[in-house]
């Protein structure tokens, strides 16, 4: 049985927020994420305050990205496993170092960066399951670099719900099992509310930074930018491919339902027939025939790789993309009206600096 988690919100140190943002940003700066095509990720450490149902994430560190395997010969598999082992050793080593420096060294989850927050993949479910079985309050932090670049920090904490955990444990994502556990794509992941907390000394530091010389003020008006079409385009494209995939899995499901109905009717007819036959046999005093062969008839299988899980993940992904779209379009429409209103009244037009300087970009 999967243990129910005993936290209901995540408290993140501002250090962790900055470290995640920095990790992703410096990869973007170096142009690495485009080449490797893989999301940045790392591990989170912290502690659980059980009395207050709080998960405190106090530090994190990036994991080395896996080396791209160039050739597909026999050695590749071996180097891959070797690489995995090396990675494990490194993680343990890092945790030991954290312990040495009085940092919380309990592994409580991991973070990943996904554009538009569309993070729901088979891998994510697998690793979440792994973390949550070892540590019942494990979470994943999803950071959205696109939305952050548009001026709004986006971090979400997710975990698998108890029902989903149990299904993972059984490894059975067939339609019957999913229906029995009452799981839908909306209840598969639970989102935890996030609070960012600073220590007192950090607050002093941040206040110090606010008055430090630098170009911070010029860069903080990113959320007023009027042109965010490129990212929207990408988002809609992603949505389209997702929908196509979803269509496939839905049609597979419909096919399955039809076959299932036919199968059920078939079984029902045969049982009826057999019962009639048995009735006659009993009257004639002959031995009755068993129902075993009918019971042994195999039902249809859902023709997808991992049962209902696939369509759940696609739905969740599509929903987060759609959420992003509605949010950004809503904001953009508001911004356009704002810009119109500003240019409309002559009095303010000449002075509005931050809006006017960004609209020209």
């Amino acid at each position, binding site marked *: 049985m999967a243990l129910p988690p005993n936290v209901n919100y995540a408290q993140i140190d501002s250090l962790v927020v900055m470290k995640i943002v920095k990790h992703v940003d410096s990869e973007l700066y170096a142009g690495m994420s485009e080449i490797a095509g893989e999301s940045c990720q790392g591990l989170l450490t912290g502690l659980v305050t059980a009395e207050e149902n709080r998960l405190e994430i106090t530090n994190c560190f990036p994991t080395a990205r896996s080396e791209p395997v160039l050739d597909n010969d026999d050695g590749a598999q071996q180097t891959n496993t070797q690489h995995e082992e090396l990675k494990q050793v490194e993680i343990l080593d890092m945790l030991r170092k954290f312990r040495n420096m009085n940092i919380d060294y309990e592994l409580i989850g991991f973070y990943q960066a996904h554009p538009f927050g569309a993070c729901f993949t088979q891998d994510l479910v697998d690793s979440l399951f792994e973390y949550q079985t070892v540590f019942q309050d494990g979470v994943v932090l999803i950071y959205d670099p696109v939305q952050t670049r548009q001026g709004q920090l986006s971090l979400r904490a997710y975990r698998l719900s108890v029902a989903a955990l149990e299904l993972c444990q059984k490894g059975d994502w067939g339609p019957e099992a999913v229906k029995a556990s009452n799981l839908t794509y909306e209840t598969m992941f639970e989102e935890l509310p996030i609070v960012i907390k600073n220590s007192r000394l950090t607050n002093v*530091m941040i206040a110090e930074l606010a008055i430090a010389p630098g170009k911070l003020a010029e*860069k903080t008006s990113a959320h007023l930018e009027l042109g965010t079409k490129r990212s929207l385009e990408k988002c809609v494209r992603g949505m389209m491919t997702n929908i196509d995939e979803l269509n496939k899995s839905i049609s597979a499901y419909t096919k399955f339902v039809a076959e299932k109905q036919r199968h059920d009717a078939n079984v029902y007819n045969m049982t009826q027939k057999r019962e009639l036959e048995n009735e006659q046999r009993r009257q004639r005093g002959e031995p009755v025939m068993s129902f075993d062969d009918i019971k042994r008839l195999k039902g249809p299988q859902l023709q997808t790789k991992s049962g209902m899980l696939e369509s759940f993940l696609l739905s969740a992904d599509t929903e987060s993309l759609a959420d992003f779209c509605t949010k950004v379009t809503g904001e953009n429409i508001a911004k356009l009206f704002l810009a119109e209103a500003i240019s409309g009244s002559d009095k303010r037009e000449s002075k509005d600096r931050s809006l006017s300087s960004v609209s020209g970009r």
Partner: protein
Amino acid sequence: MASSLTVKVHPVCYLTIVDAYERRSKPVKANQPANDKALGTLMGFYEKGAIQVTNCFAIPFNENKDEPELDDSFNQSMIQMLKRSCPAEQPVGWFYTSSDLSSACIPYHDYYVRVISEVFGPRKEVPPVVLLTLDTTFSSPEDKERMPVRAYIRTKAGIPGNREPHCAIFNPLRVEMDAFPGECVALSLIQNSVEDKQREVHLDSGLSQLEKTTGQIVEWLERLQKYVDEVLARDELPADATIGRKLMDIVQTAASHMQQDKLDALVKNSLRDYMMISYLANLTKTQLALNERMVSL
């Protein structure tokens, strides 16, 4: 030459240093003085005329004995590990939470010069090694509330004519804060915690951020207007030329970027697109909800 360098420190370093200082080790024995400081390696890269410090980590050290000690193997393996996750970074110096430069700084600095020259190989000239100090003691006489950050570079000094330099001086460098675009956004959100009693921040969502900034813009404009009115109305107030030029700049950008026809075209073109996308997204969500109901029937 060297003193024209600027040290550009990213906010994550400051936060790491503060965190390292807060987690400094307690004294092992009762009568032993505490290791009341934090020390560690700065990672980053060199630019023309500047040193970018993008990351850092603390290392164990001990300066209670006669000879100050550092954990070299800890440092080396941390550098290796960070390099694997972020290949562009290399050690550029070290940090120390101290109000002044003590004599212990010299062996530490020697050590870091050695570490960095190993990275560059024996033949090349060793790039400048930075020492960044953060004064966490709040003891500076003129400004008790501040937590000053200073950066130094060591230069050799001596009497001309002598072959061997007599001594070394830690020369101060200019420190600036630099940040990637994403970091700026995150930092400006975190800065809200300064005004919060619980020192907590909740993530902004949707239009609330837009609303807040619009309010801010209006506030600034009103302040500007008040200032201009006051200067115009009262003769005894001096008219500041730099502010006047800045105001002129604002007017200029507004006039060149906010032309009526341009804006009209923008609104006309974009609005329809946005409406369409918003409609499609909502349609998708409806479909998803429908599918959900169908499956769970």
